[in-house]
């Protein structure tokens, strides 16, 4: 994977067109093996936005659809939405299964944003909240089934913070450990690297909408 942006010569129009249409065809032709995947988060009406995106409703009005964040993204993780986005057409989004956000420490996407749709106050990677990873299918998760997978954990850029391993005895074999990945929503930035790297055809760990931690008066 090259870190160099290789598309500098392409006009924005071409870029938008390509970005909107190629992925599905590419996924089919490119993988050619077994099952290609359907992103459950999409089905639930959640769109993963670039780092620093302001609240969903305000984002749609603030974003001027200029595509500068996408051009600034060295991994082409950010692409501009096509017609499927309805009112969100032309807004930037990230499809983790295609290319997740690799959390550039200098946040070039935010720097490039002229409109304030991406929050310029955000300077630290750890404070990004694009969404939260959730294990949506525990029964299919290979690690929870006792296999030594834990790919999502080892690939997590905030390893041991956003995802930790909770080891427990495997009662079925009687002599092995189940190493269960556990997401900590207060640390997870929602970059989607876990979703991208999940080895199952339909990832069992996906980025969903961040939920504010509920405050209550209970103390331990």
């Amino acid at each position, binding site marked *: 994977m090259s870190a160099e942006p290789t598309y500098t010569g392409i006009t924005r129009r071409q870029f938008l067109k390509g970005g909107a249409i190629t992925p599905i065809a590419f996924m089919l032709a490119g*993988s050619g093996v077994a099952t290609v995947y*359907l992103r459950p988060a999409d089905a639930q009406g959640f769109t993963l936005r670039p780092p620093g995106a302001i609240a969903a409703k305000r984002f749609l009005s603030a974003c001027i659809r200029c595509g500068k964040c996408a051009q600034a993204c060295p991994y082409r993780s950010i692409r501009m939405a096509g017609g499927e986005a309805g009112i969100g057409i032309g807004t930037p989004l990230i499809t983790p299964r295609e290319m997740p956000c690799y959390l*550039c420490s200098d946040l070039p996407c935010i720097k490039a944003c002229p409109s304030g749709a991406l929050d310029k106050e955000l300077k630290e990677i750890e404070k990004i909240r694009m969404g939260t990873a959730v294990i949506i299918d525990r029964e299919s998760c*290979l690690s929870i089934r*006792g296999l*030594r997978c834990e*790919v999502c954990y080892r690939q997590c850029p905030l390893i041991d913070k956003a995802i930790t391993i909770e080891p427990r005895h495997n009662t079925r074999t009687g002599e*092995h*450990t189940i190493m269960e990945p556990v997401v900590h929503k207060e640390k997870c930035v929602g970059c989607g690297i876990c979703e*991208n790297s999940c080895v199952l055809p339909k990832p069992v760990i996906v980025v969903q909408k961040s939920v504010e931690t509920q405050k209550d008066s209970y103390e331990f």
Partner: protein
Amino acid sequence: MGLTRRDFIKASAAAAAFAAVGVPVVRPKDAQAAEAGITWGKAPCRYCGVGCCVLVGVKGGKIVATKGDPAGPVNKGLNCIKGYFLSKALYGKDRLTTPLIRKGNKMVEASWDEALDLIASKYKEAIAAHGPDSVAMYGSGQWTIHEGYTASKLMKGGIGTNNLEPNARLCMASAVVAFMNTFGSDEPMGCYDDLDLGDTYILWGANMAEAHPVLFSRLIDNKLKHPGVKLIDVATRKTRTTKMADEYIAMKPQGDLAAINAIIHVILRDKLYDEAFIKQHVSFKRGKENAPYGLKDKEVFNETPADIKNLTFDEYKELMKQFTPQWGEKLSGIPAKKIEELARIYSDKSRKVNSLWTMGVNQHSRGVWVNNLIYNLHLLTGKICKPGENPLSLTGQPSACGTAREVGTFAHRLPADMVVMNEAHRKKTAGIWGIDPAKISAKVGLHTMEMFRAIDRNELKCVWIQCTNPFQSLPNVSRLRKAAEARKAFIVVSDIYPTKSTEVADVILPSASWVEKEGVYGNTERRTQQWFKMIEPPGKAKEDTWQMIEFAKRMGLGHLFPYSEKGFYKEMWEEYRQFTIGVGKDLAPYEAYAKVRGMRWPIKPDGKETRWRYTEADDTNVKTGEGIKFYKAPGNKVNVWFRPYEPPAESPDKEYPFWFCTGRLLEHWHTGTMTGRVPELKRAVSGATIEIHPEDAKQMGIKNRDMVRITSRRGSVVLPAEINGRSTPEKGSVFTTFFDETKLINELCIDAFDPLSKEPDFKKCAVKVKKA
């Protein structure tokens, strides 16, 4: 008229699509029927040395499913992620399916006859002009036992050269030499049961969490069940193993030599040793020192009996006085206090202590010495040959033990711990092979590094490589690649995919892999596992044994392989088995292995396996009342070796200020030729990265995923930086993996090797690091 199979698949497709939209659907009966009719067979996993058992589901001549074998004693139905996708490694789009012969810069399709005739004529030509030592074969710890046995008989018994090596030279050779010079017999006394039964585990430079995944989960389970179990990780890099350990002890590269000597010093100083055990079982020896590093071609260093000095226990104690904990701290970076503490742990009578190690110790310019020193710890404290209390050398390949070591496909070995230098051994071998003993050369063949260097020196005319990828995996590989590209030798490569080695081949032969053939593997814990052929290899691909025997026929050596077509595997096995009977390495009749998920040798007279060697508790070679008896060692005494500290071949300096270390990660295996073709694993980890300590990175202005150029005196490579990722090397060192086919990482590695084991040190050389 029922539904067709196509309808079943369509029903499955619809069901999957419904499931994807979250609509619960009862799977149509027909869709379930599509998955029925699968025949299941058992086989050991194709990857690492752990030896997990898998069930292989075959339908219509194709593997349609694999799963962990619940009956497998090693893994009880579990696998790591590589094992989960095991069958996909056979179905890459670019499988080699036809022999190819070089015509200039092109590889042209050929028939088997053309290819084999050409190979035979080249071998004959070279032998006629330069003698049998001008040809060679380079095999693998992934060879089945039958393949290794065929190669040994062909090269040593037929062609008459000992130029036969396995890639296990790069991974287990140091362990082997230490097993031989300490115990007089290769392979461990203990087994995996020790991981369940012990309470203290000290890992010496091993990332078991990633390199031996299922075994590690077994070790951690012992810890979960028994809170008193302690896991200490002594290493040069913080890994996923560290994360699960109770304690991490940072060590400088090469520091193991100093640290263990200092621990022994404390054990002796404070009389923490087991005097009775020592008196009964141990003799003390001092070997040859000031050893070279193998950097010069043809450098010879042997530890002959004349070089070995016998010591008394008192003389040994006197010699060890110099290695104080303070001295140990200086060279290893491990605080003197910690060294004292480790000595107390090793000698604690209430603790069942196990040492575990693998490539950190073996791929070491003094690898044999470190192996010796670990055994010293166990022999001095008497913590050996007892359930739950043993040193265990972990292997990296599925049959490094079974094939490379037990069959003896090394330049100096014959089956069952025998060597070519020994006349009686040659005689016994010739007897079983039905050949004139004079046919087996007494001259030790070229070891791996010298074999490939000999190509560069125009001394080796032909080499046949099977089941391994040396032109990616050898250290300082550019010299060797250049020699091959200059067509200095005739190179044959048998493999299942195009690799960095087929790139330089004159003939490429398509091989059968794993369950496309019948075979037997032997894992770390002496477990021998058999499987049957379940599917046909693709296209014209053929088994390596077939390839060798067809070649042998053309060399006039067909009589060496008189097995019937139907009874081939059994007949060859029974012939090989004769080597093992009565020498403490007994294998069982072939049928016995077909029924079980492996058995650990020596097989007892009643047909049962042996879990612990050398102890009357389990090993029938030890009589009741004898307790522990090292019956393979001369005079039943095992050796504690005096092995001092010597520096590595290359250390960081002003120009190349960083240590460079290479290794493995969980998702990929070896040079990635198989796992790299599994899309799911490629998706999980797409390429190599360079791990840098965060402070070093900050100083150089390198951010996570920045491209970084790593340069050694031998080569240069650009990799994305990984900072605070799955592992973090100690300050002043960087780490990368060698699986990435697109990067010749091993160009950077120094071709220094242990002078005793001839195993290269892939873990230590000096590099500079610069933002690219």
